[in-house]
């Protein structure tokens, strides 16, 4: 108990000795953890949204209304026969009108001015694999019953590519910051051990164990890592709450992440930062014990 009291007291004395370096270390850990948190939650949000979109309509085939409904029926049957197609739904002109009114219900002027007869009927196609939308476009190329084809796959692909590029960039940056934090912890320990070199020498002479000499430094690094990661996770949660209640929530993007995922992510960040603190302080004090 006496030893623990001494270790804890010494930990805070060490922190008081180099406050600026301690703040720099906490900031570096905070930035690194925050980037990791935001990147991983961001990725989860994008995946959730893209999978929602992928479960919807992938290709919309607008039909030429000058062609007979029999031709439309034949086109639907041939689409349904393709192995990559899961489902095809016919969407009549009347349904297109209802959808338009629903989508623009807040813009009565627009609704009043639109000539609904120009809205075409369409076939809405859901694919097993959304990336196969190009095959459908190729197969329907030149079909007289088709007026225009729109595919969501291209937009989803672009969004996924953009988010994965962003995720890679943010992760790389997070690793660079983590490395900086690693060096900062090492430097803080080195400075503190230099300031305490006489004390440490006496401790060794009187028979204090290596672990006991190291513990204040290890506690210091753990404390810095924990403070940095707690601020990062707290701010991350704040950001999620803010975004889910902001204009973003009204857009097509849904900011919704399961509690289980957030809890898991929080635990991972805490455990990683504790491990990080342990390793950096262990390596930082290795020389001290071996000298």
């Amino acid at each position, binding site marked *: 108990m*006496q*030893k623990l009291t*001494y270790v804890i007291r010494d930990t805070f004395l060490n922190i008081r000795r180099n406050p600026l370096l301690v703040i720099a270390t906490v900031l570096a850990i905070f930035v690194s953890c925050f980037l990791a948190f935001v990147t991983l939650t961001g990725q989860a949000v994008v995946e959730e949204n893209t999978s929602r979109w992928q479960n919807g309509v992938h290709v919309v085939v607008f039909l030429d209304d000058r062609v007979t409904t029999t031709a439309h029926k034949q086109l639907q049957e041939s689409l349904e026969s393709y192995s990559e197609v899961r489902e095809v739904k016919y969407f009549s002109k009347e349904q297109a009108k209802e959808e338009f009114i629903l989508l623009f219900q807040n813009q009565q002027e627009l609704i009043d001015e639109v000539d609904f007869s120009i809205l075409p009927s369409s076939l809405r196609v859901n694919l097993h694999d959304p990336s196969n939308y190009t095959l459908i476009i190729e197969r329907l190329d030149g079909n007289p019953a088709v007026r225009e084809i729109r595919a969501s796959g291209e937009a989803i692909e672009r969004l996924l590519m953009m988010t994965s590029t962003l995720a890679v960039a943010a992760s790389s940056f997070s690793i660079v910051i983590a490395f900086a934090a690693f060096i900062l912890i090492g430097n803080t320990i080195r400075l503190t051990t230099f300031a305490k070199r*006489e*004390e440490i*020498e*006496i*401790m*060794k*002479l*009187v*028979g*204090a*164990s*290596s672990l*006991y000499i190291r513990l204040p430094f290890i506690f210091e690094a753990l404390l810095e890592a924990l403070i940095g990661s707690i601020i990062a996770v707290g701010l991350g949660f704040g950001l999620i709450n803010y975004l889910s209640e902001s204009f973003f929530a009204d857009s097509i993007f849904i900011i919704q992440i399961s509690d289980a995922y957030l809890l898991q992510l929080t635990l991972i960040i805490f455990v990683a930062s504790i491990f990080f603190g342990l390793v950096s302080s262990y390596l930082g004090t290795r020389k001290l014990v071996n000298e």
Partner: protein
Amino acid sequence: MINFKDISLVFEGGSVALSNINVEIQDGEFVYLIGPSGSGKTSFLRIIYRDLIPTNGEAEVTGTNINSLSSWRVPLLRRKLGIVMQEPKLLKNRTVTENISFAMEVLGFTPNEINTQVRQLLSLVDLESEAYKYPEQISSGQQTRVAIARALASKPLILLCDEPTGNLDPNLSSNIVVLLEKINRAGTTVVMATHDSGIVNRRKKRIIELDSGKIVRDEDRGRYTLTGGL
């Protein structure tokens, strides 16, 4: 208590610090380790507290084999030893009392034990009136006394002193030696390295003289007991 069998110590680069040392120091003995600078006195002591490992031979201290002692067990050995260097190495920002209690704090003594022991030690080294002074406010001789008190804080079996009188005038040196003999009479084995043969010759204690890493004299109250090394 301390048993050196054919101990040799060769540093990297080939310089020989100790060569074929055979020595046995019994419980409660007072031994002066003498010799000129570079004769191997400090290396001799550093092997005892396992700061150095002999390159040849076997060393045993308080029943512990130094050669095979793993690093993590070194602190356990050092808790049985008290070590005093030529420089007292006192913590400048702590008072005399705090310097002594520091050694006990890191070894996990309770505040009550620390208070009692520190009072006794201050009385032993005759520094009660300087208890709350800082190292800079006391003399060199008093600083050495604080270092001795600190070394005794863990109630060691052996007190190792490496030139504790090196920076002191003859009068103060004599006082330190008297203090060490007093500690020895209380039962602690004392090994004191010094190059000051003047001090040693006045005391009737065992003398081990080293020269170029070899024992050239091992004499107890005039009785020649050299066991090898010449």
